């Protein structure tokens, strides 16, 4: 059983005990503990259950790579699932809960699946659950889903805050170990702007754990000196608890800072988005487990992790710890354990020739070292009771049982190449060291084609302290163009070459292979990879996907290389030929809320408001979101139904006068000597001939000849036009104009400006509109002075205004544009002056009904990107005299001039009912695919308060040629609605009112 030593622990403060709970049980640890350290210190080795077989598991690592000890932290809306206990900082009152077990961690029912493990090798689910057909969805899948998953997602909105920022740096150093700190120091001294990110709460990485001196100082002191120096420099930013998790093209680097931890205040997470000239990948290396049967038992840990727990937190994994290793490094663990008074019954070294100098030192300490030996089996269930020692190249038979309660294993190291590889950096297999390391000849390159990253230290494959520092020194000097120098002095230890193993013992049979785990969380064993290879899933990506190796939350940090070794052996090819899977961001899982950032709730796509928004809100407007705007849909009086309000508003406009907030309409100023010529290209009609002072309705198409926008264009001056667009089209059309000007007609003298938000625009519509404007006074709005489709400037009621006589309702109507800030005053004046005229504000729905009664189209209702101007009966709009315009060629193509196209008509339901929008007219025929043949559809449909019946617009095959025909519209519930094809103009066909 694990326990806390009576002394030591460089990161803990024994004077500050902290209370916490695990599955409801109260425990204590110390300030500076991680949750895993505190649990081990309290004697808890069982920390979780695996994904597939629900096997009991303990912490195997001490850092971000931990696959087993995942827990739920906290409760309620602030809970976090799947937290790695090995990196969670202990805090007073912390609540930890184990996951993926029922009813509790020790007695998990799910572990019964382990009994069927033989029936459930890799990919078993592809071979079964096939019959009966319905059973997959209704029986098998629900069971599998319930058993899968790890923690529980918290319900309810996240109460925490997340922050995002941009930063720029010449050099970003990812990793604050000794290589990273030395690299940072060199870059800082060379005057570069430097940011150093360290994912842990403390600096220095592994070196302070090892205790070897650096630069003549104890490692801890050297690290402190570097930090003090760096912190004092204005060109350096240091951030601990900040993980660089992604390096993208062009040096775009992402880091997650955990501000909320370690008693920090401020946001829970902060996302750093950094443009980095150079990224120094100094992320260290991950130790690999060894594949032997029972290597997943709680109490079996990575050797360096054992050392971390011992040195950093004064925690030992057991009273007697067996060590098994393929490299020299684990001897450090053996000696550290022995030095701390923990019994080390054996060090099994896979290498027939044994280890180097460290092994000799261990022997000299009196430790039993067995060369060419391995652990063939771990004894025990929920904890370790012993191991079977056997020859590493044997079949595991015989062997010597050795009692112990923990195991430290080392299968060598894998550089943390993730950040190097994400943007495309190449790797090389280093056979001597048994690892994939960054290949400097295939560095990821930036926009200038030069390397944008350099890997240093252990991340570059230089595992020894002296070599790591020398490598960082050399690499940074080269890339920064500095003169050669000397790295901080350290002692060198000669290490013997490591040995990687695909299986221990090498000739073990199936039974042992089926218990030797590669991917702990996903329960992928050596036998699974072998099965994948046998079945032809021999590409490393196939093997991964078939077995799920490397797909767990550690993303293969522990398992990938071991899995590749098994695959290589099964295929009979060398490891580098198997290759690695692709490294993808993020380096470690990152909180999604932090990636979403502050832009949530009302800040998520903030609402655009017209100058009159407040007025509408105060009158209880019902809102309609239109793009980013929110427009008043209708203004129901207290107790009034929305539909009734719409009808009332329509009748007010038809009978008296109404006000519409039209401020959201796009208003794009187009100016310059070539403005007329430009608009002639943009619109299907002619704009260059428009006289100053006049307005003209225009339709725009895309290159394909389909309608994309429409609106009224006013000529303000000889070189100046104001183009009105639809509300939703304003930004798109402005972008469209710029695209053409910048890519095709870049030599034309035209400038565009989107003025949409500069003006408040109010439509005053209805027979009393002129009377109302005259009451405001200041401008002559008489029929003679301002006929239809003219505009004039002046002062209305003292407010500078541009008045357009245009109409979208079919009534006498003026649209008045004033400076945005004058909008509310003008609106209030209109309301006040018009009170006795019955002036009525009307919303977008009344506007829709009014225009439909007149047969006016709405882009987006009558059009959907497949409708031409001709389809809409707008052929007269198409200027015949123009050489070219956007869409001209498109609309001449065979299908667009086909006489059988669907064209705009009115539709009158036989009983005066309101046809459902979107309904299709169908014939009784069926096409070759068995679908009903359609011949038209309803594009808009309303109840017309003016006509007291339903009216609709629609597109119908050869519609205008078929007036009076009755179409059948199949509707829900087998009903068929009948409607007659009629003219699209339902009201005031000769336009008398408009000219009123």
């Amino acid at each position, binding site marked *: 059983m694990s326990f806390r030593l009576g002394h030591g622990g460089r990161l803990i403060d024994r004077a500050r005990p902290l209370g916490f709970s695990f599955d409801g049980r109260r425990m204590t640890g110390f300030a500076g503990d991680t949750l895993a350290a505190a649990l081990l210190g309290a004697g808890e080795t069982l920390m979780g259950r695996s994904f597939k077989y629900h096997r009991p598991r303990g912490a195997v690592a001490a850092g971000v790579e931990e696959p087993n000890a995942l827990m739920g932290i906290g409760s309620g809306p602030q809970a976090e699932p799947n937290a790695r206990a090995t990196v969670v900082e202990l805090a007073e009152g912390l609540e930890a809960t184990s996951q993926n077990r029922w009813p509790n961690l020790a007695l998990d029912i799910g572990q019964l699946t382990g009994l069927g493990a033989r029936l459930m090798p890799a990919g078993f689910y592809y071979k079964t659950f096939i019959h009966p057909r319905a059973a997959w969805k209704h029986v098998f899948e629900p069971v599998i889903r319930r058993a899968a998953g790890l923690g529980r997602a918290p319900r309810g909105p996240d109460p925490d805050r997340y922050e995002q920022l941009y930063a720029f740096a010449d050099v970003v150093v990812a990793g604050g170990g000794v290589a990273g700190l030395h690299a940072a120091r060199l870059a800082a001294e060379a005057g570069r702007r430097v940011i150093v990110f360290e994912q842990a709460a403390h600096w220095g990485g592994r070196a302070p754990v090892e205790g070897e001196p650096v630069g003549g100082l104890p490692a801890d002191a050297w690290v402190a000196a570097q930090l003090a120096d760096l912190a004092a420099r204005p060109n350096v930013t240091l951030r601990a608890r900040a993980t660089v998790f992604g390096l993208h093209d062009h040096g775009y680097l992402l880091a997650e800072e955990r501000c909320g931890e370690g008693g920090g205040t401020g946001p829970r997470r902060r996302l750093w988005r950094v443009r980095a000239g150079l990224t120094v990948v100094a992320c260290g290396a991950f130790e690999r487990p060894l594949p032997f049967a029972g290597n997943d038992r709680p109490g079996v840990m990575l050797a360096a992790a054992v050392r971390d727990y011992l040195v950093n937190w004064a925690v030992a994994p057991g009273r007697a710890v067996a060590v098994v290793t393929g490299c020299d490094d684990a001897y450090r663990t053996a000696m550290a354990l022995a030095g701390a008074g923990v019994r080390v019954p054996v060090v099994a070294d896979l290498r027939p020739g044994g280890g180097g100098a460290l092994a000799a030192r261990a022997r000299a300490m009196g430790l039993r070292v067995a060369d060419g030996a391995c652990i063939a089996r771990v004894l025990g269930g929920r904890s370790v009771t012993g191991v079977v020692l056997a020859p590493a190249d044997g079949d595991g038979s015989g062997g010597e049982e050795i009692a112990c309660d923990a195991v430290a294993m080392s299968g060598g190291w894998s550089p943390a190449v993730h950040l190097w590889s994400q943007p495309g950096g190449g790797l090389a297999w280093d056979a001597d060291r048994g690892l994939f390391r960054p290949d400097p000849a295939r560095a990821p390159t930036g926009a200038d084609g030069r390397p944008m990253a350099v890997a240093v230290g252990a991340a570059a494959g230089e595992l020894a302290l002296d070599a790591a520092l020398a490598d960082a020194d050399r690499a940074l000097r080269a890339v920064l163009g500095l003169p050669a120098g000397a790295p901080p002095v350290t002692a060198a230890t000669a290490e013997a070459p490591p040995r990687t193993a695909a299986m221990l013992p090498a000739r073990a049979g199936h039974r042992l292979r089926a218990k030797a785990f590669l991917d702990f969380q996903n329960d992928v064993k050596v036998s699974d990879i072998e099965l994948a290879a046998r079945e032809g899933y021999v590409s490393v990506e196939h093997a991964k996907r078939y077995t799920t190796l490397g797909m767990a939350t550690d993303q293969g940090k522990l398992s990938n290389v071991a899995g590749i070794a098994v695959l290589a052996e099964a295929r009979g090819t060398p490891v580098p030929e198997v290759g690695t899977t692709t490294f993808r961001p993020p380096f470690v899982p*990152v909180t999604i809320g932090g990636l979403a950032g502050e832009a949530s709730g009302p800040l998520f796509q903030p609402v655009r408001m017209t100058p009159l928004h407040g007025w509408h809100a105060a009158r209880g407007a019902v809102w309609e979101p*239109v793009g980013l705007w929110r427009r008043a849909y209708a203004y129901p009086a207290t107790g009034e139904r929305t539909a009734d309000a719409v009808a009332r508003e329509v009748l007010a406009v038809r009978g008296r006068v109404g006000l519409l907030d039209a401020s959201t309409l796009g208003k794009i100023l187009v100016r310059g000597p070539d403005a007329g010529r430009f608009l002639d290209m943009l619109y299907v009609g002619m704009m260059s001939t428009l006289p100053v002072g006049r307005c003209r309705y225009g339709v725009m198409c895309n290159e394909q000849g389909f309608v994309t926008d429409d609106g009224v264009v006013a000529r303000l001056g000889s070189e100046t036009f104001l183009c009105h667009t639809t*509300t939703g089209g304003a930004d798109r059309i402005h972008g469209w104009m710029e695209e053409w000007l910048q890519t095709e007609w870049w030599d034309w003298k035209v400038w565009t400006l989107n003025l949409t938000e500069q003006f408040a625009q109010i439509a005053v519509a209805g027979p009393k509109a002129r009377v109302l404007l005259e009451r405001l006074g200041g401008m002559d709005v008489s029929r003679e002075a301002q006929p239809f489709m003219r505009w004039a400037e002046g002062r209305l009621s003292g407010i500078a205004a541009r008045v357009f006589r245009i109409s979208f309702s079919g009534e006498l109507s003026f649209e008045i544009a004033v400076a945005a800030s004058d909008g509310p005053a003008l609106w209030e004046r209109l309301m006040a002056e018009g009170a006795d005229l019955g002036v009525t504000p009307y919303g977008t729905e009344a506007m829709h009904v009014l225009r439909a009664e007149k047969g006016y189209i709405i882009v987006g209702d009558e059009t959907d990107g497949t409708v031409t101007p001709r389809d809409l009966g707008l052929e007269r709009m198409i200027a015949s005299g123009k050489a070219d315009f956007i869409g001209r060629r498109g609309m001449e193509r065979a299908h667009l001039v086909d006489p059988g196209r669907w064209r705009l008509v009115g539709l009158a339901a036989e009983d005066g009912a309101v046809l459902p929008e979107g309904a299709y007219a169908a014939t009784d025929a069926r096409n070759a695919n068995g679908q009903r043949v359609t011949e038209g559809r309803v594009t808009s449909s309303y109840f017309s308060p003016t006509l007291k019946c339903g009216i609709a617009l629609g597109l119908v095959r050869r519609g205008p040629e078929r007036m009076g025909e009755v179409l059948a519209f199949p509707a829900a519930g087998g009903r068929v609605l009948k409607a007659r094809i009629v003219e699209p103009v339902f009201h005031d066909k000769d336009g008398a009112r408009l000219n009123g």
Partner: protein
Amino acid sequence: MRRYSVFALAREALRGHTGWGRAWGAAAPRAAYDAVIVGAGGHGLATAYYLGRNHGIRNVAVLEKGWLGGGNTGRNTTIIRSNYLQDASAAIYEKARSLYETLSQELNFNVMFSPRGVMMLAQTEHEVKGYRRTAMANALQGVATEFIGPDRVKALVPIIRIDGPRYPVLGALWQPRGGTARHDAVAWGYARACAAMGMDIVENCAVTGIRVENGAVAGVETTRGPIATRRLGLVVAGHSSVLAAMAGFRLPIESLCLQALVSEPVKPCMDVVVMANTVHGYMSQSDKGEMVIGGGTDGFNNYSQRGSWHHIEETLRALCETFPVLSRLKMLRQWGGIVDMTGDRSPIISRAPVGGVFVNCGWGTGGFKAIPGSGWAMAELMARGEPGPLAAEFDMFRFREGRFIDESVAAGVAH
């Protein structure tokens, strides 16, 4: 082919699963085939399968430059639905969906088709209209969909926020028999069935040239030597333009990166697939428990399978608004694939301007769902030289004539 079943599994369990053979053979290419398919993605493999199954053409090779299924087939978010608007689309996607219903039995390989239901949220009035229209079109096309109100949405997806401050959920287009399947299994299942018919699936074999004689195809050059054939199918998604260039013609295709991501696995909290087009995000939960998330394509053409980061932020922002539970989960992995986009967002299944060459591409961001139907239609086209009714409207010459099958119309213009 050794049949898969629980009994076979039990027998093998007794001998440590040592008796299983390869799912598909590691074929070396032969000198000539009756038909050659380039691209062992889902569409290429399904084409080969139905060539054999429906048309008796079995002397077929499928050439893959990497590992089979490694293109978009192995990168997508596996949404299967057929609630398309246009008749031609609804026909082929519904054919595919209905073939998915029995694909596990057909291939004797569990592809885990799970008709858990797909809903497309309406979050503006415009979308409400669009989806009502689609539902009515679907009714006439024989596709079972329905427009449902916010209460049904909430009942089906309890973790959804229907009254968000920005875009409240106004309803949804609901296809109860839409769902997901396991993408790799679809590729593997077809590959295994093709191999069982004697076809050669040749991996690590990139086509580097297309031999054309007298206006007709004579064979292909590959990294594993020349292969002769008079019938060539190009089914390479994002790389279609590259292959077309080898045969000397151009395609109206743009290649863009589309990204996806998964969260860490959590216990089941969402059974159905939800798509939210106003805010550009969609999400489902895999059988492993990961939240599978996708968004929009990059704004520029490229072949790098990485993608622009800001799209990930935008997608997650949108989904956190709709699904507050996401906020405290962690993103586990993010990736990209190169999608082949046509101007009307509909695919191309067509004869090429070069005799004997056929192209199947343009599935863009949504072709996983189409795999069985597309393979069915493409095989018919390759076997007969003429399209059947499913492929009839998807020829590449439609762009010249303006005969679009426009599926982006629902996203028309807001007013």
